[in-house]
C-alpha cells in the first residue's frame, strides 16, 4: 500500500516508468494486455489491406499500399518490443493471439470487398486509431509512450493517404463515387465503435486513467473523432450513414459538436465474440503463416547454434 502510494506519486509527477522500475503487478498486467492487444491489432490489421496489394489499381497506389501495410508490421514490431520489456516474449504473445486468448481490434474482422475500403480504412480506421493513440504518446510507461510517438507519426501519414484515396473516388466517376459511399456506409459505425463501450459501461477505465495509461474516456475520444470527421465527409460529398447526426451548438462546453445516433452494441459484441465476417479467416491466415513458417524459424535457430558452436571451437583452438 505504501509502495502503491509512492508509485502513484511518481505517476502524478508525470515521471515515466521504465522497465526495471518497480511497478504494481496490476499496472504491469494491464500494460501487457493492452500493448499485446495493440501489437496484435497491427499484425492482424495487415490482412484486410494486404487483401488489395495484388489488385491495387495503379503503380503509385500499389506502392503506397504496400508501404503502408509494411508500416503496420513495423508498428507491430515496436509494440511487441515494448511488451517484451515487461517480461513477455513475442512467441508467447503470438500463441495467445492464435489460441484466441488475446484479443485484437475488432475492426479488422470486417472484410475489404472493394478498393474504396483502402481509402475508408485509412481515413476512418486510422483516423480513429490516431485519436486513441495520440494520448498514448504521453502514457506513463516509457517504452510504450516512445513506441507510440513513432507509430502516431506514421499513422497520420496513412490517414492522409487514405483520405486522398477517398477524394479521388468521391470526385471520380459515378461508379467510383458509389464505391466510396458504400465503403463509408460499411466502415462508419465500426469506426465509431473502435473507441469501445460507453464510459458508463467501460470496466477498468478508472484505474487506467489514474495510472495515466489512458488519458481520455472512450466517449470523449469518440466525440472528438466524430467532430473532426464530419466536415471531412462533407468535403467528399458523401453521406454519413446516421440519420440522427446533427450539429449541436451546446456541445463541448458551448464550442459545439455533433449529436449522433444510437450505437448498435449488439453488433459490436457479436464481432468481438468471434461472429464478424472475417474473424475465423483472420486467425486462420495468421495460424497458417505461423505453421508454414515453423521450418524457417527452426532452421534459423539451428543455423545460429551451429555458428555459435563454430565460433566457440575456433576460439578454443586459438587459445
Amino acid at each position, binding site marked *: 500500500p505504501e509502495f502503491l502510494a509512492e508509485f502513484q506519486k511518481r505517476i502524478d509527477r508525470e515521471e515515466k516508468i521504465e522497465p526495471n522500475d518497480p511497478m504494481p503487478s496490476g499496472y504491469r498486467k494491464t500494460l501487457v494486455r493492452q500493448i499485446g492487444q495493440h501489437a496484435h491489432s497491427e499484425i492482424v490489421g495487415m490482412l484486410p489491406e494486404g487483401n488489395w496489394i495484388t489488385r491495387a489499381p495503379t503503380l503509385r497506389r500499389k506502392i503506397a499500399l504496400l508501404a503502408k501495410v509494411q508500416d503496420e508490421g513495423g508498428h*507491430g514490431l515496436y509494440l511487441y518490443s515494448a511488451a517484451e520489456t515487461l517480461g513477455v516474449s513475442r512467441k508467447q504473445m503470438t500463441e495467445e493471439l492464435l489460441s484466441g486468448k488475446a484479443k485484437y481490434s475488432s475492426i479488422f474482422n470486417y472484410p475489404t470487398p472493394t478498393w474504396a475500403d483502402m481509402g475508408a480504412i485509412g481515413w476512418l480506421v486510422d483516423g480513429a486509431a490516431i485519436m486513441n493513440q495520440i494520448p498514448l504518446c504521453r502514457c506513463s510507461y516509457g517504452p510504450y509512450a516512445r513506441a507510440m510517438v513513432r507509430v502516431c507519426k506514421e499513422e497520420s501519414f496513412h490517414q492522409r493517404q487514405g483520405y486522398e484515396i477517398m477524394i479521388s473516388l468521391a470526385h471520380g466517376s459515378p461508379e467510383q463515387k458509389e464505391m466510396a459511399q458504400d465503403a463509408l456506409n460499411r466502415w462508419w459505425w465500426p469506426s465509431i465503435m473502435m473507441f469501445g463501450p460507453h464510459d458508463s459501461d467501460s470496466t477498468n477505465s478508472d484505474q487506467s486513467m489514474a495510472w495515466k495509461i489512458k488519458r481520455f474516456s472512450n466517449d470523449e475520444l469518440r466525440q472528438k473523432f466524430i467532430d473532426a470527421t464530419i466536415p471531412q465527409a462533407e468535403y467528399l460529398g458523401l453521406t454519413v450513414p446516421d440519420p440522427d447526426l446533427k450539429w449541436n451548438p451546446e456541445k463541448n462546453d458551448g464550442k459545439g459538436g455533433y449529436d449522433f445516433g444510437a450505437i448498435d452494441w449488439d453488433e459490436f459484441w457479436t464481432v468481438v465474440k468471434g461472429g464478424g465476417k472475417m474473424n475465423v479467416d483472420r486467425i486462420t491466415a495468421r495460424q497458417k503463416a505461423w505453421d508454414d513458417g515453423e521450418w524457417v524459424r527452426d532452421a534459423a535457430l539451428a543455423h545460429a547454434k551451429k555458428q555459435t558452436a563454430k565460433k566457440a571451437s575456433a576460439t578454443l583452438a586459438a587459445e
Partner: protein
Amino acid sequence: MGNDVLFETLLRLADNHLILGHRLSEWCGHAPMLEEDLAMPNIALDLIGQSRALYAYAAEIENQGRSEDDLAFLRLEKDYHNILMVERPNGDFGHTMLRQFLFSSFMVLFWERAQNSTDKVLSGIAGKAFKESQYHVRHTAEWIIRLGDGTEESHKRMTAATAALAPYIGELFEADAVDQSAISAGIIPRASDLRGAWETQVRSVYAEATLEPILDHQAQTGGRIGQHTEDMGFLLAQLQYVQRTYPNMTW
C-alpha cells in the same frame, strides 16, 4: 537504333521488376516471422519502384499517349515480356528467397554496368537500383545460407528449390536481336558477360549453404517474346482486376 529497341528494352526490364515485385508482395502479412513481413515488402517496394521508373520512361519514349499505368496494367498476357523465373509461383519461403537471390545476384551486376549506359535516364535508374540490389543480394544470401545449412528439413527444401529454379536461370543470360541492338548501342550490358561473376557469387553462397549448385540446366525460355507459363494468366487476372473492371478512370 530506333526508339522501338529502347522501348522494348525498358519494357522487359520493367516487366521483370513488376512481376517479381508482385509475387513478393503476395507474402505481405504471411511471412514466417515479423522481420520478414518487413523485409519482403521492402524488396518488393524497391522492385515495383524500379518498374515504375522504367514504365514511366518507356511511356515517354513510346510517345503514344500511354501512361506508366497503361503499360503496367493494360496489356495482354503475350505483351508482358518478363523472363519466366519472375512469374513462377512463390512456393515456400526458401523457394522465394532463392528465386530472389538468383535474380538479384544477376541484377546487381547488370545495374552496376548499366550505370554507364549511353542512355542517361537509364543510367540514373541504374544508380539507385544498383544500391538497392546490393541489399537484396545480401539479405537473400543470408537466408540461403541459413536455410541450406540449417535443419535437415530446411536443407531438403532448399535442395528442392535449387532444382525447381534451375531451368529458369538460362533465360537471364539470353540475348535476342532486340537485346543485341540495345547492347551494341551501349544501352545495356551484355548479359552473357556477367555470367562468370554471377556464377562465382552464386557458387560461393551455395557452398556456404552446403547446397549442390545446378546452374547449367537446360533453359526454359520464351518470356522475352511473351510466351509464359500457365501461372501468368492468374497473376494478371489479379493485377489487372480493377483496371479491367472499371476502365478509363482515375484512381
